[in-house]
């Protein structure tokens, strides 16, 4: 609350809490998952997550 007030006074934008956002995303997806177990458990991978993983893999040398 105090943090939000500080941002209002300073006229700055609060940086979103990403872990809370991730949880919110999982909860929302679970609500509309229509019975898919992976979705209900929050086990899904999006295009942007895949791109991030690929970047790490492509920069790695196996040999």
């Amino acid at each position: 609350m105090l943090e939000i007030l500080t941002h209002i006074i300073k006229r700055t934008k609060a940086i979103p809490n990403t872990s809370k956002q991730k949880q919110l995303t999982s909860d929302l997806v679970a609500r509309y998952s229509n019975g898919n177990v992976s979705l209900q458990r929050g086990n899904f991978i999006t295009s942007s997550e895949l791109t991030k993983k690929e970047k790490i893999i492509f920069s790695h040398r196996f040999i």
Partner: protein
Amino acid sequence: MIEEKYKSIINKLITVFKDAEKQLKHSEHDTNELSIPSINQLRYVAFHLVESFSSQDSSKIEEELNKAINHAQRAKYDAVEIGIVYYLEQIKIFQENYSNYTETLEILANYIEYLTKAQNASDKLQAIKDDEKDREEYYKEIAPYYQILKDVYISFQTSIPLINKKIEENNEKARKENKRFVIGAGLTLAGIVLSIVIALIVG
């Protein structure tokens, strides 16, 4: 009722869709994650299918069915891609944890060969990403790596307890050798001190 002239194109769509669904299930089961890009592609398949149903124009119907096939092929490719990335990730983790141990090579005699397979798969996937061609062609090129990497991953997972056991055995051997060395050195030192003391007393 499906018109005869669309039968072959619809049969193709059925085959590709079933393949895509099968690959999606495999990837979901193996990686424990559902591929959203694949699901999106399958959603587009449904969209173009509905578009074809609602059209009276035969060229439009054919166009929509072809679009549906392309999206089903893309879904199949996306699903296999996610599986390959997952296995490469797991192989990377194993490599980071176990490459520095000589025991790894003792247990996994083909370790270098396995890593070469992983590098080849990674290079192939990267080359495909940098290019823009038919996804069905890419699928044919990349799909064999799924099973290859899965086999490598299974070999690595199976070898983990064996490598750990070997490391423990070697550590125990080293501890015993160290103990023996310390006792030997201590006895030698005591012998020298005793000899000096005796020499001093006699002298």
